[in-house]
């Protein structure tokens, strides 16, 4: 797939934009807020253009390019200053960075704008590692976590390395790796709805390999995968009559903020 290496990273900026994604806005706002907190702690002003909605990926990957374009078009003009755009999702970052230019291929002006925007779109963990130089004291109590990286984060943004680096940088966090770590969890956007049987089989295997690590928590920088994996594990708990979730999950931003002394609101 597309360029995951040789990316040019800017010096730490004074201002960034946040593109939070539709899933974070509606279903996991804490992850968005913790992203803001992580960045503000570094002395960075975070600007959230309120007109943002969704990157358009759901329609794009479902084969509705006109609908995807209509929504993506609304996001193109929201980031006029040359500041980096930080996205707490590898999948949505990859949509803007790698797929917007072809989505707007028939409209050269927009395609150019999309390319320019894509150049300064960063997945959160890559931004924290390569631009911010994230370094903070870890909480004292030890914990064991497993990391799940979304396929687009891994293959289009290369951010599995930066997510891993952030977790490895926390001395009291033991990062364990599940078998078949690089394999898809079965979410795939509307795939989960269109092919529930295959999706379930994949999620089943993913949850099983995560449980086998003994990790008390699964961390991911992508909400779609997280909802799929944790929702699947929770359904198993429900069926087994477990009162407490046996495989809880947390967005990477929330986990980092919690571990490095962030206050809960």
């Amino acid at each position, binding site marked *: *797939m597309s360029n995951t290496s040789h990316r040019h990273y800017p010096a730490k900026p004074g201002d960034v934009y946040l593109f939070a994604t539709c899933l*974070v*806005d*509606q*279903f*996991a*706002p*804490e992850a*968005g*807020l913790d992203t*803001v907190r992580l960045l503000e702690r570094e002395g960075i002003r975070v600007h*959230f253009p*309120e007109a943002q*909605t*969704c990157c*358009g990926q*759901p*329609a*794009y990957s*479902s*084969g*509705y*390019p*006109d*609908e995807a374009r*209509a*929504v993506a*078009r*609304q996001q193109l003009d929201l980031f006029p200053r040359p500041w980096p755009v930080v996205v707490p999702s590898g999948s949505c970052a990859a949509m803007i960075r790698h797929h917007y230019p*072809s989505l707007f291929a028939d409209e050269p002006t927009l395609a150019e704008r999309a390319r320019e925007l894509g150049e300064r779109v960063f997945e959160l963990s890559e931004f924290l590692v390569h631009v911010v130089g994230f370094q903070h004291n870890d909480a004292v109590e030890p914990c064991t976590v497993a990391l799940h990286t979304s*396929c687009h984060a891994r*293959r*289009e943004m290369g951010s599995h390395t930066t997510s891993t680096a952030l977790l490895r940088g926390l001395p009291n966090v033991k990062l364990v790796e599940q078998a078949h770590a*690089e*394999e*898809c969890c*079965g*979410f*795939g*956007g509307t*795939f*989960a*709805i*269109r*092919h*529930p*049987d*295959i*999706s*379930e*089989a*994949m*999620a089943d295997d993913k949850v099983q390999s995560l449980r086998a690590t003994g990790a008390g928590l699964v961390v991911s920088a992508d909400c779609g995968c997280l*909802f799929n994996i944790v*929702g*699947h594990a*929770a*359904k198993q708990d*429900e069926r087994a009559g477990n009162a407490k979730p046996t495989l809880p999950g947390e967005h990477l931003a929330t986990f980092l903020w919690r571990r490095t002394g962030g206050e809960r*609101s």
Partner: protein
Amino acid sequence: MSQTVHFHSAKEFADRTRAAVGNPAHRRSFRGAMDFLQAKRAAQFPDPQAFENLRTLGEAIRRYSLAHLPDLLERLEARLTANGFHVHWAETAEDANAIALDIARRIEARHVIKGKSMVSEEVGFNHAMEAAGIEALESDMGEYIVQLAGETPSHIIMPAIHKTKQEIATLFAERIPGVDYTEDVDELIRIGRQVLRRKFLAADIGLSGVNFAVAETGTLCLVENEGNGRMCTTVPRIHIAITGIEKVVEKLEHVPPLYSLLTRSATGQAVTTYLNLISGPRRSGELDGPEEVHLILVDNGRSRAYADEQMRATLQCIRCGACMNHCPVYARIGGHAYGTTYPGPIGAIVSPHLLGLESTYPLAFASTLCGACGEVCPVRIPIPELLVRLRNEAQALPTANAPVRGRGAARRMLPSAVWRGWAFVYGHLKTYRLVSWLLSRGRALSPANQGAWTASRTPLVPAPKRLRDLLKEHSR
């Protein structure tokens, strides 16, 4: 002749995938096979940069060959003819079979022995021969097993990958006269070879596929491990090679990089046991080799893919099968569920050109777009992008002379309306603000039953406050 497509609707595809997924033994055995093949391939490409360099070369060769395809095919025909081959052009599967049948009837052939050829599967060669009263016997061990069982290959490189040792033992004991049940793999292979050895000698025609056809020298390259390919192409009086028009390359020096990418990607081998370079019929003074060699060049929808700049990339394929070995969907459902000659990610992007989208569009949707296929493809076919393109085509307005046959085959009123509604909500800020606010405020009313999502997951419930609400409080 009918082609080996078994499904005609999304429902039939879904039924087959459900059956496959619900078979734990099947899933375990596919997982094991996929893990084995992935590890073998990975061991062949220890240095990622070296792999990228080699695939850059492989991609360049394939793209160059396609960019000059009409010219290269003409040169190939001229050179092959000069070397003593008979070259035939088949626009359709029926044409290909008719050409082979003409040759067979002329010499009153009774028996054809076959080396492994996916194009022969694609055109339904065995059925065509059978209908004409001619036996066509597979001699690749995997193909032989599949044929003996009355099935079709479930993988383009390892046709019997879905079969366990025990199933093969039972099959041999039941179908081969005088054979006792044995699970000893070496013994099973020996039994198969014994049967086939007699057939090689009795066959009037040997049929083979082609991995690379070299225009400059008029050479057909055939890659194999079992030696059956060499037998098929040298023992019978007549050798018929069949291949797709995209398999041509310009120069002999283009073969080694592609060969290396092929064997390492397919079976994790640095080299195969055999690489046959076939340059014509037996010449006077030679002790073996066929009297006649024919090449059937099959189009069967490839020109249509060729005509579209983006879809042309499907023709870069060298049929290594790495995409299926790394596909998490293929690993769960196996090759037969796809219902097409070519399964897995590559099957999803080539089948629509061969068969039309009407009967193949569900394949394009049977992917999470995880990108594992594109990542391992040795000639860098952007498979996920092509899957998206086919989804677009399947749901676009049907038009005459569409770049893909059967455009609009998956177009449905309800989903189209749903996505228009989705675009309206997310494309209009005021609407989005209102709808997302309502979802948050009404979160207590979120349904417990969310259809396919909650079949195996807990429901998705909106947060009490959206991020945009939290950020307003945060900045105060």
